[in-house]
Every structure is written in structure tokens, then in C-alpha cells.
């Protein structure tokens, strides 16, 4: 079947089988920021936005995104550079493989709860695993980023 949806602001059409995941379709469309770290919806690496909300693209059937808006990190490059600078400033990215999924979820957090406490940040991002960093530095970087976002909202 053919699925039509909006990818990073552009209308696209992709061929997909009924059992294909959104993850697979996105990789097929060259959205290489989207990674897969498990097959059991535990790692968060494949996080993208569907109509502005964070979803795990490995567990969204491709057919379900027909007519919806899908956003990947490729479509949020400016915001990625801002959050990326915070993470890089702490050395918090290490291997970087979990970064795109984490960043997409941080963008969702910034929208839903930009004043999040440490515990709320950890809980919101609990599904985004990272094996390199030990999380401490990521939390610090994310707080810096959320502070920037809040500053803009107030201004």
C-alpha cells in the first residue's frame, strides 16, 4: 500500500506493507537520525513526533501515520543545534547513538513541562536509555536548555 503523510513539513508518499513500522518507513525515506536500539519499545532511540507528540516509531504501524504530521530530528535542525550545544558543552553525548531519540523527547518535554524538576525530567525521559553517560551530565544539559526555552516564553 501507499501511505501519504507530512514529514518534516513536506507531503510525502511511501510504499509500506501492513506490518511495517513507522520506523522502517522513516529510515527508508532517508531519515537516518532515527535509530533502533531494541525491538521491545524499551530504549527510546526511535522517538519521533506524531502531530507534535513523542511516539516510539518502532511500535507505530506505518499505516497509522497516514494523513498525520511526522517530525524527526532532520526537521528540527535549529532546535537540535541549540539543545546539542547544551549537551556538547557537558560532553554528555558520548557515542551519540541515543541522542536523536532523547532530543526529540526533550523537545516534547519542553512543550509539556518546561519548568520540570529533576525528578520530572528523569521520569519523563525514563524511556530514553543511554549506556554511556550515566545520565548526570545529560540532566544538567537538559536543564540548561529548558532554562533557555523558559526564558524565551517569559520574554
Amino acid at each position: 500500500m501507499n501511505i501519504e503523510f507530512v514529514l518534516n513539513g513536506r507531503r510525502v508518499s511511501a510504499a509500506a506493507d501492513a506490518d511495517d513500522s513507522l520506523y522502517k518507513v522513516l529510515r527508508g525515506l532517508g531519515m537516518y537520525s532515527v535509530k533502533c536500539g531494541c525491538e521491545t519499545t524499551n530504549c527510546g532511540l526511535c522517538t519521533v513526533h506524531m502531530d507534535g507528540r513523542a511516539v516510539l516509531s518502532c511500535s507505530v504501524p506505518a499505516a497509522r501515520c497516514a494523513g498525520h504530521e511526522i517530525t524527526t530530528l532532520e526537521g528540527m535542525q535549529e532546535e537540535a543545534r541549540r539543545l546539542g550545544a547544551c549537551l556538547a558543552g557537558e560532553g554528555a553525548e558520548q557515542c551519540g547513538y541515543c541522542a536523536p531519540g532523547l532530543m526529540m523527547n526533550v523537545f516534547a518535554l519542553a512543550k509539556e513541562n518546561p519548568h520540570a524538576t529533576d525528578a520530572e525530567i528523569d521520569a519523563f525521559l525514563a524511556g530514553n536509555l543511554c549506556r554511556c553517560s550515566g545520565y548526570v551530565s545529560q540532566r544538567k544539559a537538559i536543564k540548561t536548555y529548558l532554562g533557555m526555552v523558559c526564558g524565551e516564553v517569559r520574554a
Partner: protein
Amino acid sequence: MSEKINSRVIGGVGEPVPKKDAPALLTGKPVYVADIAPRECLCVKLMHSPHAHAMIEEIDVSRAQRLPGVACVLTYKDVPGTRFTQAGQTYPEFSPYDRLILDRHLRCVGDPVAIVAAETEKQALAAIKLIKVSYKVLPAILDPRESIDNEVLIHPEESWRALVPSCGADNRRNLIAAGEDAQGDIEAELAACDVVIDREYTTRANQQCMMETFRAFTRIDTYGRLEIVSSTQVPFHVRRILATALEMPKSRVRVIKPRIGGGFGAKQTAVCEQYPAIVTVKTGRPAMIVYTREESMTLSSPRHAMRMHVRLGAMRDGTIRAIDLHTLSNSGAYGEHGPTTVGLSGHKSIPLYTHNMKAFRFAWHTVYTNTMSAGAYRGYGATQGLFAVESAVNELAHALGMDPAVLREKNIVREGETMPAYYGETAASCAIDRCIARAKEMIGWAEKYPARTLDNGHIRAVGMALAMQGSGISGVDTGAVMIRLGDDGIYNMSIGATDMGTGCDTILAQMAAQSLECPVDNITVHGVDTDTSPYDCGSYASSTTYVTGMAVVKTCEELRKKIIRVGAKLLGCREGEVLFEGDCVKKADGSASVTLAQIANAHMMAGVEDISACVSSGSPVSPPPFMCGCAEVDLDPLTGEVKLVDYVGVVDCGTVINPNLARRQTEGGLLQGIGMTLTERPEMDHLGRTVSNSFLQYKIPARVDAPNIRVEFEPSYEPTGPFGAKSIGECVINTPAPAIADAVYNASGVRVRDLPITAEKILLGRKE
């Protein structure tokens, strides 16, 4: 070499420079293996053995081969007959040559039965279902204690080969290694001791769980050679391993390492490269394998599970006089890293207590079993050995009624002491005493040790452990670095060391910037391509900062000489009359100068002189980094549930090259150690099947599980290291298990000697 403040150096040694690859990684650029693979790659999938030990009696692939889209189906009948090891080690490897790409003899659940390559993943998976196999199931050895001299032989084949027979390998006894290292009369010393702690400790086959699973793609390049693009820590070893496995000349093989999504030792083994490689050789087509997480959990290269028997002898005043350690290591179905990991369990634990030591003995056996083959995991045996020895030291403190910190302060190795149990090397740089002192302050040891009860009935308690590791393999590890001067005075640095997220591209560039007195942005880094990069054994054994870092220093020294020579020529004077000042070469009297850009551009004119240098470096010693870790736990006595509320780590890694990256290494390593201690539970059923085969069963710490982790450095200065640096990557994983185990004991009275520590073990222990 100038280490004083130098305004020309920007982002040099000691600066928290962001990683050079950060902008690409943090905008999601396609830089990993699967992102850059050609679209026309065949999808390679493996059919896995359902049995722990079996012989293929018949295999029929005809239906699978006929399926549309299937390019090839390979079985043991289609592969070369030369045995090899997947272990990424310097030749001749200690690991026995005991593998074929596919074997008729299947030695663990998951062992590959067939390789299928098809246009799509669905076709490949469908084809696997059409392969008919009849197995002769053989009795399996699942318990390493039953392996030696068992009538069941796991590697009876005549073609099995140990390249280093002195390590005690004997396939007729299921033995991969056996040996002993000792000094003094251990039995007499133990007999003379007032207290002897005699205990057994066990650890399991923990998974590295790097976020990017094993993967590689292969193709035939322009020159008809086999090109392998792999997520590997050891590109040069992969070239040799694949050439051996495929019976190809090494000149026909090229290995490229792009960005890697984590390794932690897992990718020091060529776990998957041979499968797409043989498909490409057979079909001429590009091919890619991407392990599922399940495959990465069930057929990979986890930590060697070890059973360690410690006898620790001390006098009533707390002087530790003797340590006797025997380690039984389970290497699983194949011998990757089996002979070497076991060695670290003693050689990197016993030396901590050198100061009053009169005798030690360290004996070991590494055996085959019908379980998943083990490999290299951060810590590489030291983690296991330190769990045993540091736990025993804590048990000794309790037996003596002594503060474990005081006991350690009395016995730890001092700077300048020779360590008989550490290959006779000297602790030329050692700040372990300062690490202990600072860790105690940070955790509040004086107030918190051993335990206190909170108002809610929970018990808070603290525990401590020490750790050491090495910095590269002495006399073996090799790193070479090439730096070329380019247009306008930029430097192109080529390395064979593999950045797997650790940031070695960046810290090596920082060292070059410091040496060449320039901004770090003037140094470009390229690695790794076995065709163009200078040789490096790879990134493992905590070698990169220390071994390859020294190669950077030496290369820069050579390069400075060449720049000075050309500069002097351009100034029309002798080399002795000029000075190198980073951005220029000037006459010592200040009367004239020529800029680096002029020198660079001049050397590209009419073949004046090439300005490049390539120097290789190794070290006769492997200076240990040291650290002290302290844990504070919160125990719910009703449920046995333990929460780690605080963890402090204080590290002596010599000079800290990049404080941000060193800190992240430490925090990440500590959390892996914490996971191994509390949440990660490798499980196998009675048939040898790994049931902890996803992140649901094998629980690595998530953000909500992570305690407050606090890290500080107590630098020493290592005279043989680049700018005084030692290693950091591995040492940092070693303290959590023994420190948390003692905190749990202080909270509950239960001593857990087999990892992981669970609520069940604590509750059952309290009942006893």
C-alpha cells in the same frame, strides 16, 4: 614540550573541549554504519542453533534457496576450513583458534547454523523458516565447574589450535587457560596470620548493551578488494581475522570504522563481520548484517562469568600479609579473550594491597562450556577480581572490628612501591591515598559509617571499595599517529585508534594542539581506515590516552623538527638559530620570522620537502589508574529493596586531558558497574538458553534508577604518560559491586557474594 600557559594553544590539555564529532552526532547526521550503507545491500540473517550442544546431521536449504529474493544460503559445507578466533588481540593471539564461520558442530544455543542473504529482511527471515535441519543432540556442559576433564569435549576437532600454548590451553580437557603466579610461601604466611577470610564470590556474564548493536556492511571496492565497514573497536585486527577466516590475502581486505554507537569492549571481538563478508565474497554483492537486540543479548561477547575463591590473611592490627586467589572463568563455547581476562582478576586486584604483603598466589583456570562465548567488557576480568578481593577486604574489616577505610589506608600500595603481583611494575604515579581521603569527605564517611536508621524504618548505610586497572598492555599495545602540515598551516592527524564515543579523536587532537602550540580547531582528525590510517592495535585495554597519546606527543616532536628545518631554510639560517612558536618560526634574536602558513605553502611548491611525521609508540609498562568509590544505600527492611541514593567516585587517572570527557567516562562507567550490581541479571535456563534476551529481562539502569553520582579527580603525574596522563575508561566500572555489597551488609547484615544483589537475596539472607 611546553605545558606552561601558552596563549597560542586553544583547547589544549586540561580544557573541557566539546567533542569534535558533537555537531554531527547531535543533529542526527548519517554517520554510523547502517546510515552510510549502500541501499542495494543484501540483508544478511543468521539461523541459530536451538540446542546447547549438537551436531548437524542433515541440512536441506533447497527450498530456502528457491524463495524469491534470496541471493544465497550458506551452511558449514560452504565455508573455509581454517579455524580462527574472533578476539581482537595482537597476533599471535592468546585466544585459541577454535572457530569456523559456520561449523557442523554447534556448541551453544544461538551458534549459527546457516547464513541467509536476501534482497529484504522479510525474505531472509522467511527463507530461514524453510531450512530443514536434523540435529544429533549431544550432552551439554552448562556449569563451568563440571567442564575440566569432562567426558564431553566441546572442541574435540583436530584443527583446534592454540597459538600461545604456554597459556595452558588444552582442548582435550576443555581448558582454554591454566596458570599460576606467586611470590613467597603463601601457605606459611596464611598459617601465621591471626585472621584468614576464606570466601567464594561469583559474577555473571553481563552484557555491554551498547545502544548500537553489532553490525557491518561489506562490498567489493574499485580494485576488487573486500571492503568492510564495521562498528568495531579493532579495525586492524578485523582485517587480520577476516583474512584468516576467509583464507584471503590481507592485501585483499580493507576495514573502515565510521562513528560507533558504543562498544565497551563488546566490539573488541569480530562478532558479526564474517557473515556479510562471506556473502559478498560468494555473491560479489554488497551485504549488511544488523544484529537485533535479542541477537546482541544471546550471541555476542559478554563479560566472562567468574567464580573466585579468596583467602585473605591479616594480623590483628590489620596488616594484610597474604592473598590467595583462585579464579575459574567461563569462556563459553569459544575462547575469545578467555586466557587474558582471567589474568586481570588477580593481577589487577591483589597489587592494591602491596604495602605489607608477604606472599601472594594467584591461580586460574578458564574453561569451555556450552554457553554463549564471552568476550571483552570494560574492566576485562579486573571487575570480577576486584568484586572478590575488595569484598574480602571489607569482610576482613568486619572480622577485625575495624573501619574498612582505615584498614585500606594501612595496606594500600604507595607511590614508588614495586608491585610483585602486577608483573613487578612500580607504582610510579599513585594518588590512591588521596582518593580515599577525598571520597570519605564527599560521602561523609565519618558520620555515616556504618549505618543509621531513618524515621521511616529504612536503614541508610555506606560501603567502600578501591580499584585499579592498567593503561594499555605493556610491551604489546601499539599506537601510531601521522600528522601532515597542510595549506595555510592546518594539521591533518590520522589515527588508527577508534573513537567509539569515548572522545579519543578530541583528546588526541587536544594533545596535538598542546604540542604544536595551536588551536585545537587547526587539527583535523581522521580515523580509521586500514588502508590509510597508521597502525593502531585498536581502542581497548584502556590504551588510547596513554599509548596513542604518547604517539601524538612523539609525532609532534618530529613534526616540529621538520617545520623548524624548513623555516630555517626559508629564513636562510641554521636550525639552531630559530625557534618554533606555533604560528611561526622566528630567529632567536627576533630579527626575522616566517609564518606557519608560509612554511606550509612553501613545502607544497616544487617538491621542497614533505612536512609530515608518523611515529609509533608502545610502553614497557602499564601504569595503573586508581580510584576509590563509596556507596550509600537505603534499605527497606520489610521488602529487602535496596535503593542506591548516592555514589561518589574519586579517580587518579594522572593528568586529566579533558575534564568533561573524563567525568562522563567515570559517571557512565560507574552506572554500568551499578547496573551490574543491582539490576542486570543475565539468566540462562536449564537447556542453556539465554532468557535475559531483551531490555525487559536484562534491565540496564534508566534515568529513574540512577543515583546521584558525584565524581572528582585526584591527579597524580605519570612520568611515562603523555602530559602525565594514565587511562580512565575501564577502572571506573570496578568499584560499585564491592562498595554496594558492603553498604548492603552494613544495612542488613546480609553478605551477598554472588551478583547481582537482589531484594530476594537480602530477605532470604536475613531469615538465615
